């Protein structure tokens, strides 16, 4: 049986591992390579690493750092941050990264997705959609939540699917870092929009939140930042991840599989 994926999402800024709240106040939480080593030991399902400086500063992806990360990473790795061309995506895959995530560049120029799929294959093209809830709708934002995209999420999902994306990640800016649970309405709404593999990010504060997400959406990716880097109410830094047994139990319960 294909299992839901439980995915730590690491944010990198100035070479350090950080965690934000509502896309603001990046708090330094350690060294990314060290975190990757711990997630290796825990046999993590998959890892997302996002460089949150690259797009807003307009810089190229830091290929040297990505290569270093990929060399350490023993689980499937998705990298995002500053990718604007299919050539960059190809170079990143060649460094040993399974999936390349794009957000701002693909929302502004959806044709980028077709070009990326042509170079690295659809299965390695991930679109991240950052969203803020405004009244009854979710607004799409780009450039780290600083610019309104002027497109609806329904448009972005449809364009991404038709042009060759292999996965959609929806990221709730409102829930980011709050650890109060996923926006389940957003998750189920997105699930109905597409048959692409889907990953939900933003808001997980406990393994129970992940259980609720899988209950609501079935086999999806449940991604989380704070949950896997902080421990306790005072947000002490502690890289953590549930054991294989614990993950199996979460999946069994949330999908109501026989014991």
């Amino acid at each position, binding site marked *: 049986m294909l*299992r839901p994926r439980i995915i730590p999402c690491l944010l990198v800024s100035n070479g350090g591992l950080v965690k934000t709240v509502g896309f603001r106040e990046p708090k330094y939480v350690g060294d990314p390579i060290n975190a990757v080593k711990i997630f290796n030991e825990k046999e993590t399902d*998959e890892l997302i690493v996002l460089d949150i400086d690259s797009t807003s500063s307009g810089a190229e992806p830091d290929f040297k750092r990505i290569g270093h990360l990929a060399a350490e990473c023993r689980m499937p790795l998705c990298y995002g941050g500053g990718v604007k061309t299919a050539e960059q995506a190809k170079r990143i895959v060649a*460094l*040993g990264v399974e999936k390349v995530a794009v957000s701002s560049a693909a929302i502004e120029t959806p044709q980028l997705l077709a070009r990326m799929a*042509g170079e690295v294959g*659809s*299965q*390695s093209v991930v679109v991240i959609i950052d969203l803020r809830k405004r009244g009854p709708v979710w607004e799409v934002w780009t450039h780290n939540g600083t610019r309104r995209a002027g497109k609806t999420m329904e448009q972005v999902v449809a364009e991404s699917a038709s042009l060759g994306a*292999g*996965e959609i990640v929806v990221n709730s800016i409102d829930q980011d870092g709050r650890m109060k649970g996923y926006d389940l309405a957003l998750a189920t709404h997105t699930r109905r929009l597409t048959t692409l593999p889907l990953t939900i990010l933003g808001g997980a504060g406990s393994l129970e939140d992940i259980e609720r997400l899988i209950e609501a959406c079935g086999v999806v990716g449940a991604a989380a930042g704070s949950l896997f880097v902080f421990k306790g109410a005072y947000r002490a830094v502690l890289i953590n991840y549930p054991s294989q047994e614990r993950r199996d139990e979460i999946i069994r319960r949330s999908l109501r599989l026989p014991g």
Partner: protein
Amino acid sequence: MITIVDYGVGNIQAFLNVYHRLNIVARAVSRPDELRDAEKVILPGVGDFDHAMRELERSGMRPVLDGLVLERRVSVLGVCVGMQLLARSSQEGSLPGLGWIPGEVRSFRSTDAAKSLAVPHMGWNDVRPARTTGLFDQLADSRFYFLHSYYFHCDRREDTSATSSYGAEFASAVSAENIHGVQFHPEKSHHWGVRLLQNFAAL
């Protein structure tokens, strides 16, 4: 010694890392003359079928590979698209494959029942080996990481060496004598993958 064919397609470094940790000598080669004396060959691959086939031809290593595998009967392991290249053709493209194992590569979307299936098949799935010897020694109860939209359909049932379920049952591994292929990524499948790559080295 394990030789990994580096034709610009696939995650070479991840294989080297696994073998390094296992203390098994492995090297990546990108020229025909380096490949000639290979004892055991891994053919990786990701992305588009035609692109992979074209790059393999362009590397100049195809004739040497044919000689190694078909005449000298060196063991070869195709991984992901590297496995799909073992077939004679793919619905993904128009170029012929290597044709080493009779079969064709089909799309998960090719049946009506699969219209609602999330494609690509992405994530961790169970792999049920036909026999727990050789490549699947000690891997009776195993799971591996998959990332693909097409699968291998064998002409001969006996060439399917492991199956997995996604919509329907499909061949997650194929084997015919010295030629093996796995659809999943052992290089990124934690202890299960390490075991499989170790088993391949011991064949």
